[in-house]
Structures are given as C-alpha cells and as structure tokens.
C-alpha cells in the first residue's frame, strides 16, 4: 500500500541532504563542543556554523540564537524566562499547548494571564492586544502561524504595540519557520521559537531567538552553554541538521518553493471542495502559511475519518491527541466559534517539501469516497437527509 503523508505540521521527514550533513556528527565528529581539544573544536565550529545559518533564516545575529530541544522548550524558556511572579502576560486562546500550559503554570506561581479571543477566521485583533495591556504587563506571547489552521497572526502590528508599551513580545514561530520568510526585526519581537522537526530537521532540536538586551532567566542550571542561557551539552548532530535545514529553507524561498507549495495545497483544497458537499475551509480568507488547510466535513466524525484514511494509507490529523492517543476536539477551532460537532468533523491536511502532485491527486481520490461512506453510516446525516 502506498503511504501518503499529509501531516507535516505534526512532524516532517528529515530531508536527505540534512541527514547527510548530520550523519558524521554521530561517529566521526563526536566531540563535546565545550572541549578544548581538536575534537571539541571541530564540533564547536559546526555548532557555530549552524548558528549562523539559523540567524540568517531569522534575520538576527548569531549570538541571539539559543539552541534548544525543540518548540516546547523554546516557548517555556521565553515565557518563564522573561517574566517573574506578579507580572501580567497576554497570550491568545489559540496558542499551542506549549505556550498555554506554560502560562497556566505561571498563573499558579503568581503571574496573571489574559487569554485573548480570536475571530471566526482564527485571527487575533491587535486592538484587543492594546486594550488588554496593563501597567504590570511584561510579556505578549502570540504565535506567528497556527498549527491547526495555518493562519498567520498580525505579528508585525503586535510587535509595534509591544514596542510602544515597552513589553516583551514572544512569538511561537514553530509552524512558520521554513514555510514563510521570517525577519525578527520586521516583526519586532524579543523572542521567537522554532522547532527542527517541523522544518525537515530531526525531532529533539530547536532554537529560540532572544533579542540582545532582553533579560532571560534560564530554565536549566549547569554549564555555561549557550551564553549561560541554556545549560546542557549541545545536541551537535541535531544542531548541525537544523543549520542545514535553515539553509535549505532560505534556498527554497529564493526558488519560490513556497509558492509551489501553496499551489499544491490549493489543488488539494479546491479539489476536495469541488467534490464534497457540506464542507468548507476553517479560517477561509485569512492569510495562511502555504502548506496547511483545515477543512470541515459536516456530519462526519473526524476520528473515524483519520482512522479510515490511515487504513488506506493517507496520514492526516484532527484535533489534539491526549496522553492515551485519543483525540480531543481542537481548542483552536472551538475558540474560533465552531460548534463542537463541526470542530470534531474537521481535518487538517499539512504538506511538506517531499509531497508531490501525484500524492495530492491520490489523496483527492481517497478523501471524497471516504467522506461519502462515513456519511452513509452516520445516524445524524441519515436523519438530516431524510428530513430535508
């Protein structure tokens, strides 16, 4: 059975060039980047080259990059590291759990948090940000691109508001990095987190941009790695891979690969909507990253859809997986005002650099027939068809 993977917002395959670049750092070049001898110097140089590449991707200085274990650590480090008990934090209701639960935890330790709503397209209103500012507001954390809908938030406007109010601005750019060009100066953010495995580097590595001058408290205590901002021996193969993935992302933008990607995504989206009734794009009309579409198929159970498609070889996703692996309705779609049944009937398709037109066409053959079968077996749909 051919397998088609359209769940790249969950994780992406490591690109062959990335794998080739990182491979020597498991064996040949194994040194601890903090060691003074030849082996350490070799890996130190590799780490710093990677830092240059990531800095180039984000438009910052190399010294402003802190390597992390991934998006969750970057988000936690920024949020906990830039605030203290008594501070007020502004976040949106559609943030990733790495931000939401970090904020929830800080509420227990003496911070106040305001969770801003979004409109029906999944967009935060910058005026809401402005109005929610308080004298003790220390940090705004609003994501750049949403993981479930792909919707791009007005981060540049929010950056201006933060600068005027002299509060820190962190943006979770995990789902934006590698998909659209990022320039931390234009955004005007003080911190920005990215994750390797969402951009064709491996799982277990990420980076946090921290603007020079921002006072960041570390999460970990130990050696003076990463300019004392993140103790712990560097994950050299992962960091090297992230550097390579950043280079490839920059090359991709030069070659308009992002436009090709949105072309494929639109082919999928339009193809599905042309064939399936009672379906639509959640967040329709809002600016999005080029790889994501989130579509509702009324009268189906998203869980059954994901399982059915998986059994036919197509990997997509719905909602958020809880610890057992069961699916909970998406907090993002609920915050956008979707009814619970429509949120449960929504499927996320997310593309990666490896996906081909043939794969999209195979998916287009599978999705409508699966929706039709699920609706045929849905008691709610049968009732509706009979009564209408």
């Amino acid at each position: 059975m051919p397998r088609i993977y359209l769940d790249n917002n969950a994780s992406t395959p490591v690109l062959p060039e990335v794998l080739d670049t990182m491979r020597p750092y498991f064996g040949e070049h194994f040194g601890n980047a903090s060691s003074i001898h030849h082996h350490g110097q070799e890996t130190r140089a590799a780490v710093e080259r990677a830092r240059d590449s990531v800095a180039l991707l984000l438009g910052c200085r190399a010294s402003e990059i802190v390597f992390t274990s991934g998006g969750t650590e970057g988000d936690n480090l920024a949020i906990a590291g830039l605030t203290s008990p008594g501070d007020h934090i502004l976040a949106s209701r559609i943030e990733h759990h790495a931000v939401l639960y970090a904020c929830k935890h800080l509420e227990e330790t003496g911070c106040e948090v305001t969770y801003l709503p979004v409109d029906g397209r999944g967009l935060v209103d910058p005026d809401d940000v402005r109005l929610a500012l308080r004298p003790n507001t220390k940090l705004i954390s609003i994501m750049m691109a949403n993981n479930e809908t792909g919707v791009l938030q007005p981060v540049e406007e929010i950056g201006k508001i933060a600068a005027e109010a002299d509060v820190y601005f962190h943006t979770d750019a995990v789902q934006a990095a590698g998909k659209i060009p990022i320039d931390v100066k234009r955004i005007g953010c003080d911190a920005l987190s990215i994750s390797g495995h969402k951009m064709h580097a491996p799982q277990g590595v990420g980076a946090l941009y921290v603007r020079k001058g921002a006072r960041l408290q570390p999460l970990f205590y130990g050696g003076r790695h990463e300019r004392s901002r993140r103790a712990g021996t560097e994950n050299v193969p992962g960091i090297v891979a992230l550097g390579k993935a950043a280079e490839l992302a920059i090359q991709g933008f030069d070659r308009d690969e992002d436009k090709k990607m949105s072309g494929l995504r639109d082919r999928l989206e339009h193809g599905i909507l042309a064939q399936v009734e009672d379906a639509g794009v959640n967040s329709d009309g809002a600016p999005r990253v080029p790889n994501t579409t989130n579509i509702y198929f009324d009268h189906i159970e998203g869980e059954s859809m994901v399982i059915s498609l998986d059994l036919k070889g197509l990997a997509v996703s719905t909602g958020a997986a809880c610890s057992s692996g069961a699916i909970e309705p998406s907090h993002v779609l609920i915050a956008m005002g979707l009814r619970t049944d429509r949120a449960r009937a929504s499927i996320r398709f997310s593309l990666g650099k490896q996906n081909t037109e043939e794969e999209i066409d195979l998916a287009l053959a599978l999705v409508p027939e699966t929706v039709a079968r699920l609706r045929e077996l849905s008691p709610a749909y049968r009732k509706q068809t009979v009564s209408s």
Partner: protein
Amino acid sequence: MQNSRTIAVAMSGGVDSSTVAAMLRAEGHNLIGLTMQLWNQRRLAGHEGMPEQVTGRCCSIDDVYDARRVAEHLGIPYYVVNHEERFERDVVRPFVAEYLSGRTPIPCSLCNNHLKFDQLLVVAQQIGADCVATGHYARVEYDDARGRWLLKRPADRSKDQTYFLFGLTQEQLSRTLFPLGGMTKPEVRELARKQGLALAEKPDSQEICFVPGGDYKRFIDAYLAESGDALPDTAGELVTTSGEVIGEHRGIHNFTVGQRKGLGVATGSPLYVIQISGADKQVVVGSDEHLYSRALHARRVNLIAVENLREPMRVSVKIRHRHEPAPALLEKVSDDEVIVTFDQPQRAITPGQAAVFYDGDIVVGGAWIT
C-alpha cells in the same frame, strides 16, 4: 466463521481482550484494534478524598500502553477512540442520578448498551469492519428456527457476563463476536502465554472502572463538587417496616437494599435496609426476613430470544450479577413492563439492578427493576 473478515477488536489492555485479538489474528482475520477512551482517570484524582494515584484500571494510561503493545506484538493497526463525552452522558451521570434517587445502578450494562455495542460498533463500521469482537464471557449464536440471534451463557459459568449484556439488540448481536464464550479463564490465560502475550498474568479488573478504590460515595461527592453542583440534600429518616422513626440518615445514596453496616442505629437484632424511598427520603430498615419477596416489577424491557411475550413464560431470573438464577413466572404488564413472580421468595430485590431472564443457557431478555 468465514475467513478474512475485517473485525474490530475492543482492546482494554487486559488478558481477555488481548487474547481475543491474538486468537482472531491466528485465524487469519484482518483486525483493527480499538481502545475506547471513556473516562479521564486523573480527572477527579486528589479531589475530596479521592486517591491521588490511579493505576491499573480501565482507560488508564497503563492499560492503553498494554493494549498498544499487544497490537504491536500482533502486527495489527491500533487506535484509541475518544468517547468520553458519551460515557459521561450515558453512564456516569445516570449512575450518579440513580444513587441520588435511592436506586443501585449497574453502569457496566449502560456502557455495553450505549458505548461498547453502540458507539464502538458505529466506529467499527465506519472504518470498514463488519463486526466487533470483545473479551466478554458469553456466547452469541444465530438460531435458524427462531430466526433470531441468541445470547447464551458461556462455558465458564464463574465468569458469566451475560447479566451485563441483556440490553443488546438483534442488530448489535448480529455484529458481535465473543470468541471466549467456549473457554474457561485458565484456558484463556494459557492461550495468552502460548501467544507470547506479556500480560498473560495481569490480574482481572473487578471494580467499576471509573470509581477508583470502589468507593462510589466519595466518587459521587467528588463528581458533583467538580461539576459545581452541590450534593442534593437526601438526608431523611430511618424508619422500621411498621413506620416507626428510629433515627436519621445522611443521604439515601449511602444505602443499598440488603445493606447491614453503616445504618447508625444500635438495636438488639441485626437490621438491614429493606427499602429506599426516593420520594420522601426514607430508608426502611427491618430484620432479615423482611428482605425476602416473591415478586418484582421491571421496566425498559429488552427481549432477545423471543420477539414478544404473548403468554406468561417459565424462566429463571437473575436479580444481580452474583445471584443464582431462580425459577419464576415472567408476565407482561404492558409493552414496557413485566412482572416476575418467583417460586421461592428472593432476598434483597434491588431497584436499579437488572432482572435478566434465562431459559437454561439462553438469555430470554431482561429489564430494569423498579
């Protein structure tokens, strides 16, 4: 059994359902393992005297882990499906409401009727499976002469679960497999060992899956507190069978018919709960002999072996899970109500429990005792 059907196996992470998966796999069927996520075990943990740690129960992370490992060992696709909302609506809330009305509920039957053989069957069909196999100890057979699907008691009488399955419809039974119906528990464990299942020695689960430690009173308190509802005041009088008030009680949900401990009154002879009156919040107590009665009324009838009860029928009736079916006459009162008259008086007939009617090994049907 025809070969290579697609079967969904309800996998709880226990020995029984894991062995079912291994057996059907060995027979060459296409299997899809499904675990129902029904209740978040951490939800009430630490709440008002509830245990902090919950392990080794249905829907716990450990059980899902075990089920996933078995599926991986057998090389079958496996998914966890979330039915927490339905479970709370159709099982947990009625469970709480029944106790607060002075009845003693059976959540497992509700779960079978509304979740395992309803929702799970829908999911199974949607993902392309013809039927659902479970690890219940019961048998299901098609009877040509009657033109009906029959539910029958299993080979291992000590594990008989037909009492909890009386609510299954013909449609549900036609899509259900109970592969353990002809086996004893020791045989199941032996087979699990032979199939190389690491959990062959895992202990059986006994208590109600969502009530950790089996303390339903604490569960009700914690559940109501978490929902923001105050515990309704169901305190009232303790009265004797002759109507004499001999004390007070702190809420009818603390009692079940036949209960002896915790009555809070000291008398010369042992006293038992005879009856709980939800309407006037009275708990009637009396001596052991008052617990016996010859008849019961039951509603919400489900018939399996027969289409309807035209004539009174001689059956054996089981009035709780651990009760030896007793000979009785079953008569229809209306389309949804029956009266059961036992040959010998039965002890502690308890409203909220099921009366399940047997004809030998065959489950004729059942209804809820009123």
